[in-house]
């Protein structure tokens, strides 16, 4: 039995009918055609499905779509665009932080969460923050460089933009979800 839900994605409301068991990532991809969010595993290890929910990086394969009602969801399609890249997108391009690109959207959103909490992370902090996002192509080195470069480009403005950065996981997101 499908149930109606309104999801706020990239600033716009989307009314959809979903099965209660439908995962957020399935609804994003199959119902809303937001195919930039990827599925790379079944067990919340790989992080390819990472999105932001109220500013926090969350693996959208561990959230039922129904749970995400009323929260602000940001996907790779919403963080920037080809015309106006987010500094992280620009930095991943500049620093060759991707090869096949499959992990990249999740990696960028995970990094966005990190920089919102810690605008000037060390290499160790970056490697720790992204350890829930797997990349098989790059060996991570240029991903780390890209995140460092984006942090520099974004300058200290992070703290001002995301004051909620020190809060715990948003309500409705199950414990253990996210990175």
């Amino acid at each position, binding site marked *: 039995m499908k149930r109606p839900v309104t999801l706020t994605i990239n600033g716009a409301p989307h009314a959809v009918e979903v*099965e209660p*068991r*439908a995962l957020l990532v399935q609804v994003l*991809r*199959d119902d809303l*055609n*937001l*195919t*930039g*969010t*990827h*599925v*790379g*595993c*079944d*067990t919340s*290890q*790989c992080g*390819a499905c990472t999105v932001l929910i109220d500013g926090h990086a969350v693996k959208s394969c561990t959230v039922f779509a129904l749970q995400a009602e009323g929260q602000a969801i940001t*996907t*790779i*399609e919403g963080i*920037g*665009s*080809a015309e106006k*890249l987010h500094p992280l*997108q620009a930095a*991943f*391009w*500049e620093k*060759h932080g*991707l*090869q*096949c*690109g*499959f*992990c*990249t*959207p999740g990696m*960028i959103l995970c990094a966005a969460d990190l920089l919102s909490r810690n605008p000037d992370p060390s*290499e*160790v902090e*970056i*490697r*720790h923050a*992204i*350890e*829930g*996002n*797997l*990349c*098989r*192509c*790059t*060996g*991570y*080195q*240029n*991903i*780390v460089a890209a995140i460092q470069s984006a942090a520099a480009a974004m300058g200290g403005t992070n703290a001002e933009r995301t004051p909620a950065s020190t809060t715990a996981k948003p309500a409705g997101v199950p414990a253990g979800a996210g990175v």
Partner: protein
Amino acid sequence: MATLFGSGIKRREDPRLITGTATYTDDVKLPGLCYAAMLRSPYAHATITRLDVAAARKAPGVVAVYTGAEIKDRVGTVPCAWNPPNCDLKVPPHLLLAVDRVRYVGDGVAVVVAGTRAEARDAIDLIEVDYDPLPAGTDPERMTQSGAPLLHAEVPKNIAFTWVVNGGDADKAFAEAPVKVKQRIVQQRLAPTAMEPRAAVASYNKGSGQLTLWCTTQNPHIHRFLCSLILKLPEHRIRVIAPEVGGAFGSKIPCYPDEALVSLASMDLGRPVKWTEDRSENYKATIHGRDHIQYVEMCGTKDGKITGLRTTVYAGLGAFASTAGPGIPTILHGLVYSGAYVIPNIHGTIYGVYSNATPVDAYRGAGRPEAAYLVERLVDIFADEIGMDPIEVRRKNFIPKTAFPYTVATGLTYDSGDYEAALDKALSMIDVNIFRAEQEKARKQNRYLGLGLVSYIEICGLGPSQVAGAVGFGGGLYESAIVRVYPTGVVRVYIGASPHGQGEETTFAQVVADEFGLPVESVEIVHGDTETTPQGWGTYGSRTTAVSGSAVKLAAVRVKEKAKKVAAHLMEANEADVEWKDGSFVVKGTPGAGKSFAEVAVMANVAWNMPSGVEPGLEATAFFDPPNFVYPFGTHICTVEVNGDTGEVKILRYIAVDDCGPQINPVIVDGQIHGGVVQGIGEGLQEIMVYDEDGQLVTGTMMDYAVPKASQMPHIETAHTCTPSPVNPLGVKGCGEAGTIASAACLVNAVCDALSPLGIKHIDKPLTPARVWAAIQQAKGGLQ
């Protein structure tokens, strides 16, 4: 004029990938799309005594259910496309779906097609199967021994083939040599783990009789050919599209049952059908890599000269011979036993063995890492035996740079190399004497520091098609390219190769833009669609830049030759008097503006004023079939600290010096090295596919299979030497597999060096804390 060749420009393919606007196979949606799900065997070996799909057929949304018995007479079997000569390879039929008997965990049993993914999955659960389990085994050595379960009645002792490599007289060398060392080495099963799981979307038009197949493939033209055989559909009725492919590492070379099954369903239903594997399905039903048990020996003199190498290898093939499976442990493995060294006497016996496990095929490096690892481990063990610095042993046995082209004992002729230069460069990046002093000091404090070094070679740029035929590869290995210049002077290049993350949309554009004096933005590289691209054999074996890139270069040169004729005509000059200078065609010795490439392009395309006898248009096709393979090489150095209490290995530094010839885009080259090194470190430290005694897959999810994480991996220091290859017009070699070929051996060499005070000479990878700890305890007499 500055060239783009050699410039680390940003990648052309990235904007779509970083904005989520790229299209991978699972992103493809078509009107009327339905979804397939596969029922796979949970048993390693069993007889199917009952298979009842009646309830599944009646389930909500289900439009079709297939079993093996129903389809076996309608389709061919999954082909094995590599049949090495003189080895009596036996290839039992690999059915699309099992009939009566399953032979590995993951073997396909039935397919459900339904309106949604969930409906297909739900209906799978309604299929009733009774299995009668049979004895099973997954160890390739034990499977050849008496009492082992037999997989295929027509394959005695499960031995699919016995292949021998022989050069010189190894038995004589060993009989005469004063120094002999030997080691049993296990090269564990690995899961390639491309981040994008495999997927296929088949759409058959009953009116036109045309099948379009979107597919996660590294080689769409090979898929077209093999699917044509399986489906009994003429090749020209099949279009295979490799859209964005999210990594592959060899696992998307083979033709699997799955893409043929969705094609069959679409042909029956007249509706598009999609299938996407989940990760646990990927770990069961997508090929694995390695799986060798090796008995290896090296002999030589007390002053460090290597005189012989012998091996006996049990190479697991899994339950069936995969597309390229038999070629990996033979041609791509045994022939490179000489490594970077003069080893006059080599003998290897390779048994290809069927077992109750997932089929094994090419995984990054494919046969060459298994060879480099045994050679480089043996060199260290040999050096230890004679009390000589392993660096000096390597130096003493290198093929000298003046000897190229050099034919090794196995018969391969290496194109070019300067192994000592790469070694010296690597040694310039670390002071080994200081490290040895620190190591000595640390040992007094019961701390274990180690330094590992490897000097590898690889065979890539596959390869001359004549050789492909001679070694039983079921296809050619040339590449082709079409360079097409539009009236406005912009260019599209159509290549038969099929990159999936390696960046050829950028590097090939750099080559073409240089040729025509254009900005790189004016050149687009098109790949991955058999409808638009000329014949190609795929992206694997570090071959695309050397082979496809050379085809691109040749086609561009042909275009330019024609453009020169047109330019001469337009300038009313003799073609012999026209030269290309600073991005224009000019008349030699004549001042003033010449004709730019764009000006010539428009005239050639409108053809208002062409030279006599010259056809309109400005495009060319070129096929490049290399006269030889290319042989990249390098030296990697790794330093580690091993925790004697926990067995944990900490990488202190990782230095990679690689020589892949001239680099079109050094940033992309370094990216390939980084990724390759980390995959090899994963192999060395933590990755292993584990089966239990019953053949059950224990590491069937990412919770169990330890893909390297960012926090576990080191910063990699890269440097390069440059030795051009004489066998292609770009002089390039290849770099996609280099890191993986070097790094697993480098890491294990470092750990064994660290633990040498305990008398430890070898530990089988992966060097998990548990294994290292056990080895330490055993060496100390604490564990028996």
